[in-house]
């Protein structure tokens, strides 16, 4: 089985973002591997460690500026075999490079460079654009089966059994035959920390670079972001001294309890 994993470089999850005149301020802000992409990488590595899966190689794919190479090195240090960097300076946090273009770039990479891909693992969403489109859109473009919000992936015959999160709990779906696209949710696994020896090994692993403009895809956003602004601030709250005061406020001021 050959696995392609999407890894995105995003603003670190702990950063409190500020809105500037041209979208969210990214200058000097800490950037990290998207947490859900990290989970996707971990799952790929676990599948490789499972002899029954017969994973031949894991290729990590990142689309973005030159610093994506650092993100790729993290994925390589976690256990991916080689990396592909599709270089573009277009902003990937919803402002410029949007999900349809990203999914089409994934499609081009699969069709032109990694033809024998059996499984694409991506995170369920990136924490900057919060779209969650790339997984299902790629599956749609490729006419491949999909399973989103995967909480558990098991091998079954030539295919996979995936338990996925739903609004009411979870459901189990069967993908009888690969190739397929799976997007990974929070509870799928807990990603490992890359060990120092693996970080050193990762420096020698291969990363191929391509330019996003060379694939013949229209990279212009189809949905134009006219403005980015901060949400209206909530009215400042107050501290109450005890439960009695709280109940009084809820009953008489907020009128939310009888």
């Amino acid at each position, binding site marked *: 089985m050959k696995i392609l994993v999407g890894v995105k470089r995003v603003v670190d999850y702990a950063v409190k973002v500020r809105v500037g005149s041209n979208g969210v301020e990214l200058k000097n802000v800490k950037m990290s591997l998207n947490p859900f992409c990290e989970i996707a990488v971990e799952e790929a590595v676990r599948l490789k460690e499972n002899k029954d899966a017969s994973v031949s190689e894991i290729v990590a794919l990142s689309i973005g500026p030159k610093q994506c190479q650092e993100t790729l090195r993290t994925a390589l240090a976690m256990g991916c075999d080689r990396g592909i960097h599709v270089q573009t300076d277009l902003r990937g946090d919803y402002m410029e490079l949007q999900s*349809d273009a990203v999914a089409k770039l994934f499609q081009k990479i699969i069709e032109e460079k990694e033809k024998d891909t059996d499984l694409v693992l991506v995170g369920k969403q990136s924490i900057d654009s*919060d779209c969650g489109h790339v997984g299902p859109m790629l599956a749609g473009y490729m006419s491949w089966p999909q399973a*989103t919000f995967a909480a558990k992936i098991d091998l079954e015959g030539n295919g996979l059994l995936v338990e996925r999160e739903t609004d009411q*709990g979870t459901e189990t779906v069967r993908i009888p035959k690969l190739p397929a696209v799976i997007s990974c949710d929070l509870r799928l696994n807990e990603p490992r920390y890359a060990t120092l020896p693996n970080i050193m090994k990762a420096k020698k692993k291969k990363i191929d670079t391509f330019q996003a403009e060379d694939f013949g895809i229209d990279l212009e956003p189809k949905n134009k972001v006219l403005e980015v602004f901060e949400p209206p601030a909530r009215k400042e709250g107050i501290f109450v001294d005890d439960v009695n005061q709280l109940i009084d406020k809820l009953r008489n001021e*907020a009128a939310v*309890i009888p």
Partner: protein
Amino acid sequence: KHQNLLPVSIDTKKIHFSKEVTDRKHTPCGTSNILIIMSSFLCKSRTLFNYCQLGKVHEKTRRRAIRCILQRNSASTLIIAEPSSSNASSSSSLMPATLSVISAAQKLHPGPITILCDKAIDTGSLPSAVTSVLHMDTRSSSTTNTGSLLVAESVSSHIQQAQKLYSFSHIVAPATKFGSNVLPRAAAMLGISPITDIIEILSQDTFVRPIYAGNALAKVQATQNVKVLSVRTTAFEKANVDGSPNATVINLMEEKEVPPPQTLTEFVKENVSSSDRPDLATANVVISGGRGLKSAENFALLEALADKLGGAVGASRAAVDAGYAPNDLQVGQTGKCVAPELYIACGISGAIQHLSGMKDSKTIVAINSDPDAPIFQVADYGLVQDLFKAVPELNRQL
């Protein structure tokens, strides 16, 4: 074929034309004595739907007429109904999520609204804004069981077919896990870039959606001809269920041009926790617990309070990770987005990711022994106290 016929007058049973149609073979409705006009009048579409119900109109003709009416309308919306859960008491009515999508759709344009659903819907349980219902056929040859009708591959294939037949200008789904699974795939199949999790509709092509866990909002304009959208259900009031007795029900699979959808994924089973409490996503009151609860047993304290107030129980990621609560109670960026009248956060510190899932609640109460917990920054009422003292006291007093 009959586009050059001009209607001269209409009464309740007959539509009179300027030109005599003598050749019965070519009339669209065979032996029926009412001819259906292919109309391009937007606002008359409701009237024409009503006419289609009158008289002896052949089923096929009626459907063809509706198709023409929908195609001629420059703006019409297809809503992807949220499937009813196994917990839903009545499956012939629409889910609350769908009702929110309907009221959102009404803000787009005044054109007709069609619903795509998997179960038979009683027209009495439709809001009057809904003019037709497309029913996904369970007899589709490629689905192995009715559960597979709702896998993304099947639903998006039905959406593609509906779009081919009726050329909707807007396709809208709820931004639930179901909608998020189906809509992007459907958008890709239609060659459209979707806009999801919309919290405000400014016009038929301009919307507001959150980014960066809701810490920034983006005003975005769709430039493609067809808008494929999903809306955050907590941002839109549920449409009134005042009945739509003239709504037309069309069985999507019966149309001969429709090829059966491919099933690439099969539904196996679902694991749902059943509860008598209101559904977390739509409850008016939510009592939520965090790591401060310290154990799953302690969640009983919150359950008691929820029952007193007729509310649902929620949990932070930390509580779910620690095994204090099941994952379908999780509120946050991963998990459910809720906006109840009252949200009481107990022992929750208030991480950015949790806040993004509840900061649209009308009244927020925070109970935490740490006065510096970030949750107090969004709380309307903050109580700095040990929750194991405060919550039982609340239960006693209420």
